[in-house]
């Protein structure tokens, strides 16, 4: 039951926010996130779990772009017979961690 879905914050009312999902308005608890009107947020069982920092399309594009590097590494791995994709993976993990630190 980890069904969570993204919507847009329309109004803040104390410890709750009205979130709009294509015309469906749900009142969700906002105490763990402090959203602002217009933010895209992820909602589960009546509470806001997190702000969504990018649209689905944007994020997919980024993930695919990062993967291009990994694919290139894999090809190199095959030809060299060695595994140096480890470094790349750790580096990209660092990137992702850093990107999220400004939450």
């Amino acid at each position, binding site marked *: 039951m980890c069904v969570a*879905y993204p919507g847009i914050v329309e109004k803040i009312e104390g410890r709750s926010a009205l979130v709009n999902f294509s015309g469906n308005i749900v009142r969700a608890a906002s105490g763990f996130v402090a959203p602002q009107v217009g933010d895209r947020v992820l*909602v589960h069982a009546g509470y806001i779990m997190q702000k969504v920092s990018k649209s689905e399309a944007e994020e997919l594009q980024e993930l695919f772009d990062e993967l291009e590097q990994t694919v290139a590494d894999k090809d190199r791995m095959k030809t060299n017979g060695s595994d140096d994709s480890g470094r790349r993976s750790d580096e990209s993990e660092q990137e992702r961690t850093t990107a999220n630190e400004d939450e």
Partner: protein
Amino acid sequence: MSERISMIHGSGGAATAALIRDIFTKEYGGEALESAEDASVVIGAPRIAITTDSFVVSPLFYPGGDIGRLCVCGTVNDLLMRGAEPRYITAGFVIEEGAEIEALRQIAHSLAETAREAGVEVVCGDTKVVEGDEGVFINTTGVGFVSEEVDIAASGAKAGDCVLVSGTMGDHHAAILSRRLAVENSIESDNAPLVETATKLRSIRTHSMRDVTRGGLATVLKELAEASGKEFRIFEEKVPVSDAVRDFSGILGLNPLYMGNEGKMVAIVDPADAKHALEAMRGSRYGENAALIGEVREGEPGAVVAQTRVGGLRKLSVLQDEGLPRIC
């Protein structure tokens, strides 16, 4: 007249007569009812289609409709799906004590209005009162005429046929559930009589028609695939779903393929007539969002295979769990 129904209204005496006269006959009109006979004698035809249905929807009034409109739509659509021209409808009411008379009047009014829209005459009625808590239940019988040459049945699909739907899926179910869970939105039930669409489809090579009710699109497709012994291949991305229903389903973890409608249908059509059929549906009332969603194949008999957005294949079954109680 008092404001609420009580046992005396079911006695068969003066109170019953007044109720019938002031609420039902007044709203329905029509020769057959005015004469207040025990049975109505009407013009017939060599081939008739008959259907019966009971309506127990709760709440009685929901966004986009009420039980009065619903009972006509459900009945008329069943007749239409067999290629019949709906002509007559009966309506037997079982009313629980405490039901508001004004609510009854509104229901009768909706029923009459929808009957007029669908071109059917209300020829018989019945009224009973039982102990209970303000509930209203309606049982109907529908009668339609079927022309000699028409042969439309669930088993009719042939390999190569096209699968069309007349519009967006899951609306009725979402409207009812929204009311029950108090989620605010503008989703309305799509309850509607599909007379125009079905009439047009009757005039081309339509092999099967079925309306999408409880259990949703997946259930109906599975029934048609099994009845015809063919495999249906559906393209998920082509199934129309409104943004509001899509997000409503997303919030609750529901799947629009399994959510019911009350004014949408599936048509299985000869491929040469598919384009014409789609245009006809889109040009008909209630069919603006009609779409071609798949095809019929010789394959695993009775299987419904959906191709997903990412290109995977999955088999659909009929609705497995409870779905939603009392949506129709």
